[in-house]
């Protein structure tokens, strides 16, 4: 039994040997002269792969815009970082230690790790996407994606024949719940008869599972599918069944040319550029950014060419109202709002507050499905 110890000892020796070599090399590398002016280094921590054509892809578009806009900004990133505390915090900490000036952590699961690391690196700035905890050097940011979602719901309400719309949803968390509500309110605005059926997948990124969920909804009679997911699986399901699809995060028309109507999309670059500019100007502060369509951080992908002209006109007019700020998040969540049981939650003339919207944990009338708790 002891003899395996020999293997162990030898293996350790190799590792140590290699380490010694690497130290030598690394020291030599560090000696090379740095650029004349210290560039601003921005690090991104991604939850998925940059090629997901979804959430992470959208953030990576923002990163690329940042690099294009500021010649003196370098960016680094790490893909597919698990959201468990051990791994996420290690990656964030490593970026901080490697001298990143700004670290952007793009998933809710990174909230506590971000706060923890920020405590130890007070000179590094952090932006956490979608969370609620802040610190002097930690800002949070999110966008009112519900605005384009609402408009996409209006489109879905006009396009459906069966008056059943399927919603493939990731997790029963407030972000997803209020998206479902906004979409449904849009649907009911143009088509009071239609209902939205929700299926939870309990995953952000699983093409097969998302596709299967969409197929189940289509089997149940839905003829428009939308999603709060990071892959094009549901769109492809809609394409195969000759139904319509409303995507998320990216223009997925190439993947589902006959189904894809449009998609609520992100322009994170708008916010990232502004944050970096503030840092360069020395005016950056820890804020809780919540931008809307008017600010340009959220948008609707170009409408499919096969959408009938009258409907297109109606939707484009609505888009214009949001872009101008005539309508916004609060317009959507204005009374009267009834919940699934028909009980009035927000009376006529009243509007939900920002905190109420962010913490929303009930479905509006017209949604079929439960919030597990």
């Amino acid at each position: 039994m002891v003899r395996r110890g020999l293997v162990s000892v030898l293996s350790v020796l190799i590792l140590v040997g290699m380490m010694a070599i690497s130290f030598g090399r690394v020291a030599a590398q560090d000696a090379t002269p740095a650029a004349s002016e210290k560039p601003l280094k921005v690090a991104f921590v991604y939850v998925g792969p940059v090629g997901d054509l979804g959430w992470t892809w959208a953030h990576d578009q923002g990163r690329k815009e940042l690099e294009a806009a500021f010649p003196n900004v370098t960016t680094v990133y790490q893909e597919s970082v698990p959201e468990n505390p051990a791994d996420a915090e290690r990656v964030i900490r490593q970026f901080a230690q490697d001298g990143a000036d700004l670290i952007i952590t793009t998933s809710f699961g990174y909230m506590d790790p971000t706060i923890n690391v920020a405590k130890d690196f007070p000179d590094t700035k952090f932006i956490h996407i979608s969370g609620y905890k802040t610190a002097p050097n930690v800002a949070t940011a999110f966008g009112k994606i519900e605005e384009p979602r609402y408009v996409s719901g209006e489109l879905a309400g006009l396009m459906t024949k069966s008056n059943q719309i399927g919603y493939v949803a990731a997790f029963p968390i407030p972000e997803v719940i209020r998206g479902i509500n906004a979409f449904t309110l849009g649907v009911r605005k143009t088509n009071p008869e239609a209902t939205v059926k929700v299926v939870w997948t309990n995953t952000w990124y699983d093409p097969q599972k998302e596709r299967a969920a969409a197929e189940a909804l289509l089997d149940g009679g839905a003829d428009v599918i939308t999603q709060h997911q990071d892959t094009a699986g549901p769109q492809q399901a809609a394409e195969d069944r000759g139904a319509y699809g409303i995507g998320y995060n990216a223009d997925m028309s190439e993947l589902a040319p006959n189904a894809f109507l449009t998609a609520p999309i992100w322009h994170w670059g708008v916010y990232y550029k502004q944050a970096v500019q503030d840092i360069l100007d020395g005016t950056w502060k820890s804020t809780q950014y919540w931008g809307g369509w008017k600010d340009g951080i959220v948008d609707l992908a170009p409408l499919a060419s096969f959408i009938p002209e009258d409907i297109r006109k109606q939707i484009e007019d609505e888009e214009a109202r949001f872009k101008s700020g005539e309508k916004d998040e609060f317009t959507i969540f204005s009374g009267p709002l009834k919940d699934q049981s028909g009980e009035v939650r927000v009376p006529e003339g009243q509007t939900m507050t920002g905190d109420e919207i962010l913490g929303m944990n009930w479905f509006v009338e017209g949604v079929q499905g439960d919030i597990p708790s």
Partner: protein
Amino acid sequence: MASVPLLRGYRIERVPAPSRLATALVSLLSLLLALVFGGIVLALAGENPLTVYQTMLRGALGDWNGVAETLVKTTPLLLAGLGVAVAFRMQLWNIGAEGQLYLGAIFATGTALFLIPTAPGWVMVPAMIVAALIGGGLWGFIPGALRAWFGASEIITSLMLNYVAILFSEYLVHGPWRDPQAYGFPGTPTLPDAAWLARWGTTRVHLGLLFGLIAAVTLWVMFRRTRWGYEIGVMGENPRAAHYAGMPTKRTIILVMVLSGALAGLAGMSEVAGIGHQLQRNLSPGYGYTAIIVAWLARLHPFGAVLVAFLLAVLTVGGDQLQMSLGLPAAIAPMLQGTILFFLLGGDLLTRYRLTRVLGVG
């Protein structure tokens, strides 16, 4: 001599007793071969393999923070790996370490948040440990008892219980245990300070690592020096001989599964109390499954598990650096990890079996 035909003209034969030197050399050679093979792939991808390897090592071991983070990653792999190794020693294929880890985490969290939320640390931490051992042990007891009493395959039952445990944990963090202050996001409230495991200086290395090392030494002593360890060894190597010698097989099956689960449960407690300080979704990125690799590569030896858990942690932590510093695609790191594991396991096979040319091919 037992032999199986594999390729025409070749046979795989079992080597009766691989020598220590052969074992050591083959392990070394496998590692080197893996590095060379990985290097060729990297070179084909246009990367300098030496730079890549340096970067990995620098990330994992190049500074104190790297070392510390590697040890943080080692901790759950070690504890769960030891748990798996205990069961595997007895040829009990406990695939349920993941679920046992979650149960340990759930029990420990429940103890800290609801059972004795105001207890001082010297009560709290031991209580959480006991709770985790009970939780994980319970999740090992179920497949163990089913196996001992009804002959149900522990592979299937322990695997299935993983899903039960993970989904139960999801239910808790989305439902009854959800932090009311968290805007509806999943996750329990933060544990009281007394439940936080002590950390080593400013690093994240926590007491869990010590638990792992103590467990490794204890298991080593148990296997080598105690009657019970001897019985487990005999039952694993030859159950009929154990029966012949009158050893209490059924009882031992259950106890070993409980011990196996308890160790994995301790891994869960240590992640919650040492790192996350709350029960949340994604507590484990598959530690319970990686633990199987740990146990196997360690040849079920407790000290081997320490080394292998550390090696896997080096690969993971070092692997981060490939994208962070070199901007390589994120898939490179797992590819290298897979290559190294593949070669190590392959080398292991080669020390126990050999391929012989059979003469007489026409």
